[in-house]
């Protein structure tokens, strides 16, 4: 990760800081902090799976890697051991293999349903079959789809998609909201006549205050398809982390970045925000373990994070 200026040490240092408690909690004496019980939760995530239902075919440089069956096995083994877990997808589950060209996304959605996704957001390629097709396919699955800055007008997607969802893993409440990338220049306008896009940072502030203040979520996760970062001023995950307070974890997508170690940024309140992204095509399953202490104050901090390779790795180089 030298290219971004992050390495494992930064992450570990941030872990230390957040476990000790930054801000109000950190200022309290130890005997006041000591009360409360700690609850672990594993957050599993993928992004840009791009219709990769089967592993990469023989002859490819990535032969044998990826595939929903191997991902299922991995998720199952993690779920067997972890006391609480949620599975999230940051968009672009459509387009990439003939499965999409032939079945318009039915296979992908059914596979996601079977893998047990708890929430997903929409990427630009999810509109590749048009809005009607997206709705038709999403109706075949039950998992919530979140997007806070897309508006669908009078289209049926407005009923299928929500701004945010609250996942309950007793006794924890996890608020998840979604952000989508600006469609102009990415999605042909003819495909998305009723789609309108709002400022993602405004939407994020709105969702965070709602999830924190009204619903009292213990952690707030942003499912973002904005992309990790850009040379210009386009909204990105890094900008989101630096400019909007109240988000604990940003699960990113769109730029197909393999973030082996989460990026750590500090929001305007001075709290750590972790940005994760699991490459593309289901080659990795991202995992972030959190410990949430419920007591006089809620303290949430990750204890470990990794990208787990999915499927056989035939040519380890």
């Amino acid at each position, binding site marked *: 990760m030298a290219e971004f200026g992050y390495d494992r040490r930064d992450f570990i240092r941030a872990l230390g800081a957040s476990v000790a408690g930054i801000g109000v909690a950190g200022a309290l004496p130890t005997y006041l902090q000591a009360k409360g019980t700690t609850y672990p939760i594993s957050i599993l995530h993928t992004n840009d799976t791009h219709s990769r239902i089967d592993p990469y075919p023989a002859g490819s*440089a990535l032969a044998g890697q990826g595939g929903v*069956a191997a991902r299922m096995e991995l998720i199952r083994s993690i779920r067997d051991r972890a006391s609480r877990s949620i599975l999230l997808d940051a968009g672009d589950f459509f387009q990439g293999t*003939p499965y999409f*060209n*032939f079945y318009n996304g*039915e296979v992908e959605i*059914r596979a996601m349903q079977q893998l047990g996704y708890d929430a997903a957001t929409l990427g630009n390629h999810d509109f590749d079959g048009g809005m009607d097709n997206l709705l038709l396919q999403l109706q075949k699955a039950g998992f919530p789809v979140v997007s806070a800055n897309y508006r669908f007008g009078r289209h049926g997607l407005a009923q299928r998609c929500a701004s945010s969802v609250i996942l309950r893993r007793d006794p924890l409440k996890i608020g998840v909201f979604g952000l989508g990338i600006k469609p102009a220049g990415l999605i042909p306008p003819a495909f998305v006549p009723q789609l309108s896009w709002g400022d993602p940072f405004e939407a994020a502030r709105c969702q965070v205050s709602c999830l924190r203040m009204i619903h009292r979520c213990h952690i707030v996760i942003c499912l973002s398809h904005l992309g990790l970062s850009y040379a210009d001023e386009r909204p990105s995950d890094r900008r989101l982390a630096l400019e909007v307070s109240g988000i604990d974890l940003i699960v990113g997508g769109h730029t197909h970045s393999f973030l082996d170690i989460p990026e750590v940024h500090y929001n305007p309140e001075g709290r750590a925000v972790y940005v994760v992204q699991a490459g593309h095509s289901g080659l990795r399953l991202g995992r972030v373990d959190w410990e949430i202490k419920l007591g006089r104050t809620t303290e949430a901090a990750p204890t470990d994070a990794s990208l787990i390779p999915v499927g056989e790795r035939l040519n380890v180089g």
Partner: protein
Amino acid sequence: MRLSLLLWALLFCWTNLASGTNRIAGPPYEQYFFEQNFEFPYPSDTTLRKPNRTQKASSVYQAYNSYTLNSDSLLKGRVSQSFAWVDSFRNLQNQFTNKPLLWSPKALIKSMPESELTNLLADILLIESRSIWDTVHISLLNPGGIRAEFPADTLRLLHVMEVLPFPNHLDKITLSGTELQQLLDHWAGKGGIALSGMRMSIIEGKAADVWVGDDPLQQKHSYHVALPDYLVDGGDGCSFLIGSRVQRGAHRITDLVARHLETMGKSGELLKSQTDGRIRIR
């Protein structure tokens, strides 16, 4: 109250039984598919503009409901068994996508500013576009539309569809020399593009030293450029192309490339491509 409960129970049993018999004794999906006689988008000689997506999806959905587990997938073990239903989808599409096209002795991988894969695809598109329209000077293909690589193996329709998954059509636009320069500058700023019929250098993110065919780029000359309709409609930051003089083509890029490779394979050719310095970075 009791009567209604009894009725509900009966209804519940009846629906369960009905759906159960349907799943077990229903016609196999292949039969269903051929009876319905609906068309898949690939491969076809006349792929016209408006595929009726909804109709296809619902037909396949019905085919899905009548799938049956085959014994092969049951032998694969616990995990594969849970995704056994994918087999029916895979088998059906493999009837089309396993069609062999030609032998590729070498894996072709996309890279910037030019690579064997991008050059090959642009060359094919130039040849194919010249068979559609009389004069075409240049062909362009945005690198974002190339999503995979060609393996060192028998190339099948599957590989072409994975490399070019988008249902974009090939259009021809007419640009003046200045407009072409603007287009090339845009892509030079992004690090490169798949192109054929010309060569250029990238100097500080701008296209320079542009040669179209055997002549240098002239500002007042008009050039015919074949490129995906995605770019013509302003995709990938090419909003300046909206409103330019365009001739819409009726063929999908994926189809054109697959058909070209198939013809090459039938005449006994191998897949070969090379980087020839058509884009240099200075």
